[in-house]
C-alpha cells in the first residue's frame, strides 16, 4: 500500500509547530515524545503503521478550532482520531500530520428523554451513550461490535452499523445533528434536535465522510425506547444456499427481526473449538432475534419456524430462557476471537443483495481454494453485509500480500453481484485503490468536489478514500 511522501518542509519545522500547539492548548494536551507517539501509529488495521508528527488531545471545541486554524495557516495535514478501532486504516497517520485525538472530549452534554435525544461529545464511546439512557428505558441503536471502545465521532465519520441495523438502521439514520469544525477553524452546526432541517442536508454527506470534511466535536443522537424483550433462535441448515433462501423468505413474510446473523461451516467449527457453544453439526446456521412482549415473540417465532420448516433445517433451536439465549449468541460473539486463535486474519465487509448470498459464498469458496487460503464467513445476513475473514500467517513472507489480493478479488465479486466494497468499515486506506471497481471516474470526481468545498487545500485525512492517482493533483496543489 502506497502513502504519499511526507512533506520535508513540515518535518523540519516540527519543533516550532509543537511549540505553537503547546501555546494554544497547553503542554498536557500535546504529545511529541517519540515513544509516547507510538500509541497512535496505527488503528485496528495493524498491518499499516506510521507515527504522526505529533499528537494533540484537545478538550473543547474552541481548542479543536484553534488547532485546525493553525494547521490550516501552516498547511499541515490533520488526521482526526476517535478510539482508533477503524478496520480500514481510516485513522492511519502520515509522518507529516498532526494527529487530532478526540478521546478527552467524552462528556454527555444533554439527556432529553421526553424529546428522545441526547447530545454528547465526539470522544464518548458508543456504549456509554446507551449506558447514559438505559435506566430511563432507552438505548442508542447502532451497536458496532466494537461499541465498548469506539467513539461516537468515529461512528459518525464511518457511518457505522451493528448487529441490529436491520430494524433500526445505521448511524446516519440515528444521527440528528453535529457540531463540527472545518479545516480553517470555522465551527458549524448541522441539524439538531429537530427533524429534517430545510436546505441541503449537509449532515447526510458529513456522516460517512471518514474525517475528510471536518472534525466532529459534538453529536445529537436519537434514542429509542427499549423493546419489552428479545429472544434469539438458532436455525441450522445443510447448505449455504438453503440458509440464504430462508433469509429471503423470512424478510418477505413481513416478520422484521432485529438481527439475522449467518455463519458458515469453517466459522462454526472455529467457534465451537474456541467457545464450546454447543452448535449443531451443519453447513450453515442462522441466528435470528426478534423483539416484543413474550406473546409477540412467540408469535413471530412460530412464523419463522414454519418458514424455516419449508427449508428442511437440520435443527431449530429456540431459547427458552436468558441462559439459552446467551449460549446461542456465545459462538457468534466469539467468532472474531476464535478466528484470531487460529491465525491472523483480514476482515472484509462487502455488501451484496440478499438474493445473491449463496452464489457469492460459492464464489468466495472457489477464490479461496485457488489462492490456497482459508476463508470463514460470519455476517449480518438480513442486510447482506458479508464479513469474509481471510486467514493468513503474518510471519510468513508474502502471505499478507496474498491475503490482500484474495480480499480484493472477493470485493470485486461483491461489486459484480450488485453490491459494494464496504458496508460499514469504510474505505480508509485499505480499499482506497479499489474504488474504481465500483465507481466511474466521474462518480469519484463528484465526491472529490464535495471535499473541495469543505477542505479546499485537502489537508484533512488527505490520502484516504480516493485512489491516490485520482486525488494527486488536488493534494499537491
Amino acid at each position, binding site marked *: 500500500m502506497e502513502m504519499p511522501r511526507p512533506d520535508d518542509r513540515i518535518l523540519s519545522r516540527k519543533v516550532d509547530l509543537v511549540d505553537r500547539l503547546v501555546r494554544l492548548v497547553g503542554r498536557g494536551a500535546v504529545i511529541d515524545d517519540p515513544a509516547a507517539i507510538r500509541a497512535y501509529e496505527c488503528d485496528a488495521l495493524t498491518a499499516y503503521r506510521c507515527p504522526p508528527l505529533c499528537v494533540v488531545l484537545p478538550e473543547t471545541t474552541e481548542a479543536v478550532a484553534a488547532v485546525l486554524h493553525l494547521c490550516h495557516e501552516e498547511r499541515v495535514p490533520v488526521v482526526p482520531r476517535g478510539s482508533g478501532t477503524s478496520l480500514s486504516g481510516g485513522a492511519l497517520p502520515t509522518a507529516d500530520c498532526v494527529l487530532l485525538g478526540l478521546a478527552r472530549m467524552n462528556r454527555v452534554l444533554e439527556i432529553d428523554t421526553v424529546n428522545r435525544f441526547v447530545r454528547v461529545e465526539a470522544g464518548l464511546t458508543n456504549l456509554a451513550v446507551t449506558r447514559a439512557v438505559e435506566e430511563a428505558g432507552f438505548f442508542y441503536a447502532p451497536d458496532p461490535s466494537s461499541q465498548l471502545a469506539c467513539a461516537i465521532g468515529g461512528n459518525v465519520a464511518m457511518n457505522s452499523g451493528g448487529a441490529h441495523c436491520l430494524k433500526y438502521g445505521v448511524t446516519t439514520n440515528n444521527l440528528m445533528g453535529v457540531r463540527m469544525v472545518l479545516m480553517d477553524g470555522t465551527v458549524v452546526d448541522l441539524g439538531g434536535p429537530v427533524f429534517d432541517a430545510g436546505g*441541503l442536508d449537509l449532515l447526510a454527506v458529513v456522516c460517512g465522510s471518514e474525517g475528510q470534511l471536518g472534525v466532529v466535536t459534538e453529536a445529537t443522537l436519537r434514542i429509542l425506547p427499549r423493546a419489552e424483550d428479545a429472544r434469539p433462535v438458532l436455525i441450522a441448515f445443510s447448505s449455504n444456499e438453503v440458509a440464504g433462501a430462508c433469509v429471503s423468505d423470512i424478510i418477505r413474510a413481513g416478520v422484521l427481526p432485529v438481527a439475522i446473523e449467518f455463519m458458515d461451516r469453517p466459522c462454526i467449527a472455529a467457534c465451537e473449538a474456541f467457545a464450546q457453544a454447543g452448535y449443531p453439526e451443519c453447513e450453515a446456521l442462522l441466528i435470528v432475534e426478534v423483539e416484543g412482549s413474550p406473546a409477540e415473540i412467540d408469535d413471530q417465532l412460530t412464523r419463522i419456524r414454519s418458514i424455516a420448516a419449508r427449508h428442511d433445517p437440520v435443527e431449530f433451536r429456540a431459547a427458552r430462557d436468558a441462559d439459552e439465549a446467551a449460549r446461542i449468541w456465545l459462538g457468534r460473539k466469539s467468532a472474531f476471537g476464535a478466528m484470531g486463535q487460529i491465525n491472523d486474519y483480514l476482515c472484509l465487509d462487502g455488501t*451484496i443483495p*440478499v438474493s445473491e448470498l449463496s452464489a457469492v459464498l460459492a464464489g468466495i469458496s472457489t477464490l479461496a481454494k485457488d489462492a490456497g487460503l482459508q476463508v470463514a464467513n460470519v455476517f449480518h445476513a438480513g442486510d447482506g453485509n458479508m464479513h469474509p475473514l481471510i486467514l493468513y500467517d503474518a510471519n510468513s513472507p508474502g502471505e499478507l500480500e496474498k491475503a490482500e489480493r484474495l480480499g480484493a478479488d472477493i470485493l470485486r465479486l461483491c461489486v459484480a453481484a450488485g453490491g459494494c466494497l464496504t458496508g460499514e468499515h469504510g474505505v480508509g486506506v485499505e480499499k482506497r485503490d479499489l474504488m474504481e471497481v465500483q465507481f466511474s471516474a466521474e462518480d469519484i470526481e463528484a465526491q472529490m468536489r464535495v471535499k473541495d468545498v469543505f477542505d479546499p487545500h485537502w489537508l484533512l485525512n488527505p490520502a484516504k478514500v480516493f485512489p491516490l492517482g485520482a486525488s494527486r493533483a488536488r493534494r499537491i496543489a
Partner: protein
Amino acid sequence: MLRPADEAELAEALRSASAPLHVRGGGTRASPARDGAEALLTAGLGGVVLHEPGAMTLVARAGTPLDEVTAVLAAEGQRLPFEPPDLRGLLGRDGVSTIGGVVAANASGPARVRLGAARDHLLGMRLVDGEGRVIRNGGRVMKNVTGYDLARLMAGSQGRLGVLTEVSLRVMPRPETEVTLCRRGLSPAAAVSAMARALASPFEVTGAAHDPRDGGRTFLRIEGFAASVAYRTGLIEAILRGDPAPSDIERIEAAASSRVWADLGGVAAFAGREGDVWRLSVVPGDAAGLVARLPDGACWLMDWGGGLVWALCAEGTDLRAVLRPYTGHATLVRAALSTIAALGMEEPRAPAVAALTAGLRAKFDPRGILAGAG
C-alpha cells in the same frame, strides 16, 4: 418544453442549456416557473427497474409515478415506509407525483416519527448535474459506506444540485393491520405530553398527531400483526387514560385509520383555505408553547408528536419571528408571492452553512442552470 426520453437525452439537454431550466417531476410540488424559464419534464424517465421483496429493495427511474411504485410494492405486500404525503389538495395542484420528486423533496409523512424520512430509506441514485455529468452514488444494498453519501445529500435538495434519473429505496413489509386511537378533549400541552409518553413506550407507535379542531383530537397509530396490534392498542389506551382529563377514546380500524393519516399527512384541514402555509420543525416539547404564541386567527396542526407543526396564517405573517425563542426552523410551503418575496421560502442559514451550500451549488451547477429549482 423539453421531455427527454432517457438519461443520455437529459444529460444532453442540461449540457446544452444556455439559460436556467425549470425542472419538474410531476409538477405537484415544484414552485411556479420563473418568467421565461423553459420547462424540463422527467416524466419520460419512467419505470420500475427492479423490485426484490426478499431483499426489501426497489429501484425505479425518477419519473415513475408514485402511484405506480405503490402499486408494484402493494402487489407483494410491501410499501414505502416513509409514507410520502399527498399535498396536492393543500397546494391546489393536480398532476402526478413522481418518485424522483418525492426523493428530491424528502417528502415524508406521519410515519417519519418512527420509521424515518425518505432520505433514511434512500440506498442509491443516479443523477445528472447542472453540467450534464452523469453521477452514480450508493447502490441497491442495505448497507453501504463506500465513498461519500451523495445520494442522501440529494434527498431534500429540491433538484438544486442535479436532476435525479434513478433512485433505489429500502422498502418494508406492509403491516397486516393498523389501529388508530383517537382521544378527545386534550389541551395542546396535554396532547404533546400524551404523545411523548406513547412514543417513549416500547409499542412502536407509527403516528402521533394532534388536531385542535372539534375540541381537540389526539391520534396515535399502532401497526403490525393483528394479535400484536390488539395487545399494543390496549397498552397505548392505558397510557392515554393515565391523563387526569375525562377520557373519551375512540378506536379507528383498518381502512378508516389509513384515511385519518392520509388526511393528516396531506394537511387536508388547510386545503382550499386562504393564507400562507408554514411548516415548523421544532423540539416536540416546545410545540404547545409555540402554538400558544401564534397570531390570532392562525390555524395549526401537530404531527410527529409535536415535532412538526403546520400553521395557516394571514398572508405576510412572519412566523420565523414567533419561532425565534425556540430551536427549529420555519419553511413556507404555500404562500402569496409577496410573502415569498419578503421572507423567502426557507429559513436563512448561518453564514458558514450558507457558504458551504453555495460552494456545493457552484461545483455541481456552476452555470446556474438549476438555480430556479425547488
